[in-house]
């Protein structure tokens, strides 16, 4: 009897399935036809048909962030693969577990500048956690297992696997595949530290007990480590106020007395004052990036810093700290919680409460009932009540989302933090909606970013996704305009988007519901119905054009240079 054979494409799918993957995003092309043929025959993996490979990558990213599982996207060689680059880079900057599978021209054509050949492994070297060009079908089971393991463990990140077409078609005996698949991984250079060093933890606990004005700065690491509850327990037990980075929003319920809002360039006054005033900072899963610590030496100047991160390379990269702890936050926080009984910092919390009262987030009302962008956020916040998933693009609307919408659950804000990718909002929302079909998902995007990836809207119709897309249309590239106003004497260079498409017609073309909101009154009247509807809808909000995001700590400076503390720019 002839032995049962399995080809490379089937090996790929079989491995993905065994690793627990059930859904993936992709776009076919010449060099992945064998894989798509097997997807057709295999039947156990649901493949979502994106309309652009960048969309596929962002969808997988949004899926991963919403679900906490790996996101998988697939693209063909050459332009298909290069189209995923922005998506891979976005996932890399925000440490999202993403598996990008690309087809490659056949091995015999590699290096010959063949049709649709590109060195995607070379192109993505700096933006992947690891990458593979598979040159032997017998490596494939190991590579897929390794890729999955590396992407999802330690500090998560994107891994790319490039598979030449002949490897996809090549066959081995099924029995051999089973033997290859069952082999243990051999990664001697990859062993993420999970347990924090006991001596460092002891030192940290001592500092926490001695501190008078401690502050927790929580970041995306808390979400990756899935230890939101541990962090909340720690904060409450030790009575320590919490501020978060943009990507950390949701770690602490927004209404909690101990929560100060987001910190950084457009953070709350209280959160930023707290960093200047604190005598101890517990930096939990953050990387002191330049939007948080514009001037690293002036950041948390009076504080000793305990920095907990799973990536040793983050320790001391941007900011020198007193107590570094390399380890999984969950593990470290559990140790903190075990070693600390109830602490109290009431005076400190009271002081922060006073600042909260004195410097609430605020903005001027629109003249003559005109709609302010912040009105939209406040309106949405009332309706969503902290329980939806919100995705954004990058820019002003992103900051207003972070400021005015409450997030009570982890992984409920999906936004491109490190990369700052325009066009991320719509595809990531599609991914999130697929991962969480029963949760309300709202993509809030600018009129600029919308135009970068709106082809993905076709998926709403294709897969019946009840997504809401809110366009904050100020007919400007708002954030760049704001910088040009503040730092370039108002020379508005190529930020004017008054020539925009008719968003209503786009909605019509994609067979989606559409509504336009142009005044505060209309917002109050219409928004709830639109958001609560179960139909995919584009909601265009025509807002006041030249509004600034405030407060603001200008790039490269410290909290002392914060402007707009009361919601308006002071005269210089």
């Amino acid at each position: 009897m002839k032995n049962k054979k399995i080809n490379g494409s089937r090996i790929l799918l079989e491995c993905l399935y065994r690793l627990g993957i059930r859904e993936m995003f992709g776009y076919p092309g010449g060099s992945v036809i064998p894989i798509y043929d097997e997807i057709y025959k295999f039947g156990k993996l649901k493949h979502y048909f994106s309309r652009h490979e960048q969309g596929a990558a962002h969808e997988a990213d949004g899926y991963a962030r919403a679900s906490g599982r790996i996101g998988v996207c697939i693209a063909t060689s050459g332009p298909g693969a290069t189209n995923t680059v922005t998506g891979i880079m976005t996932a890399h900057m925000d440490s999202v577990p993403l598996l990008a599978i690309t087809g490659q021209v056949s091995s015999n054509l590699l290096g010959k500048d063949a049709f649709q050949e590109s060195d995607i492994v070379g192109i993505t070297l700096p933006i992947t956690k690891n990458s593979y060009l598979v040159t032997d079908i017998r490596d494939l089971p190991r590579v897929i297992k390794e890729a999955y393991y590396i992407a999802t463990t330690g500090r998560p990140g994107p891994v790319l696997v490039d598979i030449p077409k002949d490897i996809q078609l090549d066959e081995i005996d099924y029995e051999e595949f089973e033997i290859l698949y069952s082999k243990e991984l051999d990664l001697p250079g990859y062993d993420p530290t999970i347990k924090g060093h006991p001596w460092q933890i002891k030192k940290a606990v001592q500092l926490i007990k001695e501190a008078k004005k401690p502050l927790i700065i929580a970041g995306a690491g808390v979400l990756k480590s899935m230890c939101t509850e541990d962090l909340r327990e720690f904060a409450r037990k030790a009575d320590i106020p919490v501020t978060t980075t943009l990507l950390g929003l949701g770690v602490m319920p927004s209404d909690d007395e101990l929560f100060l809002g987001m910190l950084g360039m457009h953070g709350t006054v209280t959160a930023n004052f707290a960093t200047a005033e604190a005598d101890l900072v517990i930096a939990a899963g953050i990387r002191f990036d330049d939007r948080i610590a514009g001037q690293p030496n002036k950041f948390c100047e009076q504080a000793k810093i305990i920095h907990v991160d799973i990536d040793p390379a983050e320790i001391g990269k941007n900011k020198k700290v007193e107590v570094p702890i390399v380890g999984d936050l969950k593990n470290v926080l559990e140790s903190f919680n075990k070693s600390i009984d109830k602490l109290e910092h009431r005076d400190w919390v009271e002081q922060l409460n006073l600042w909260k009262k004195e410097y609430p987030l605020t903005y001027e009302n629109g003249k003559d009932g005109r709609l302010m962008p912040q009105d939209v956020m406040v309106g949405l916040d009332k309706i969503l009540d902290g329980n939806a998933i919100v995705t954004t693009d990058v820019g002003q609307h992103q900051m207003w989302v972070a400021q005015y919408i409450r997030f009570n659950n982890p992984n409920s804000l999906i936004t491109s933090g490190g990369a700052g990718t325009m066009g991320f909002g719509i595809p990531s929302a599609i991914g999130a909606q697929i991962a969480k079909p029963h949760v309300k998902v709202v993509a809030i995007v600018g009129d600029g970013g919308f135009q970068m990836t709106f082809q993905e809207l076709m998926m709403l119709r294709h897969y019946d996704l009840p997504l809401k897309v809110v366009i904050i249309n100020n007919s400007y590239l708002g954030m760049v305009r704001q910088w040009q106003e503040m730092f370039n004497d108002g020379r508005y260079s190529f930020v004017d988007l008054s020539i925009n498409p008719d968003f209503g017609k786009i909605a019509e073309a994609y067979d989606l519901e559409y509504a336009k909101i142009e005044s505060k009154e209309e917002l109050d009247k219409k928004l709830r119905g639109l958001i609560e509807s179960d139909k995919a809808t584009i909601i265009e909000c025509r807002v006041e054009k030249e509004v600034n995001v405030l407060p603001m700590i200008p790039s490269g400076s410290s909290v002392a240079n914060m402007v707009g503390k009361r919601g308006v720019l002071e005269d210089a």
Partner: protein
Amino acid sequence: MHKSYEMLIITKNTNGIVARIMSMFNRRGYFVQKMSAGATNIPGHARLTLTVVGDEDTLDQIQKQVYKIVDVVKVKIFPEEGTIRRELMIIKVKSDNETRAQIVQIAEIYRGNVLDVAPNSLVIELTGDTTKLQGFIEMMETYGILEIAKTGVVAMSRGEKM
């Protein structure tokens, strides 16, 4: 303070690993002065010795960033003391009947080997640490250097420890 250090990297010898390491150096603005790479006694592994320049903080970062590369198995900085460092140089010097004997004599002092003699040139092979090679180069400058080929530094700790 900026100094140069020898960094040892042991890595799985996978496709493009040197490109991966160099890409990280370029991306983060770290400066590699010299590099030597080759096989080791462990099958499937490569050993790289890089001469890198930076202060202690930068050096600390470089080590962590290199170790983050999945295939890299070991990273260390060789201490100033207790380390053997060697470079190999092949140097082509102008020579004629008058100077040939002098050059050969100097090469002997430096324990160099003459590899090739031609009517107007000599090729000499020399091994040693950076200062020794530099000293020899300076001596040869008076005769006229035609070509120099140098490896990077290879280094090893004294004693049993790696």
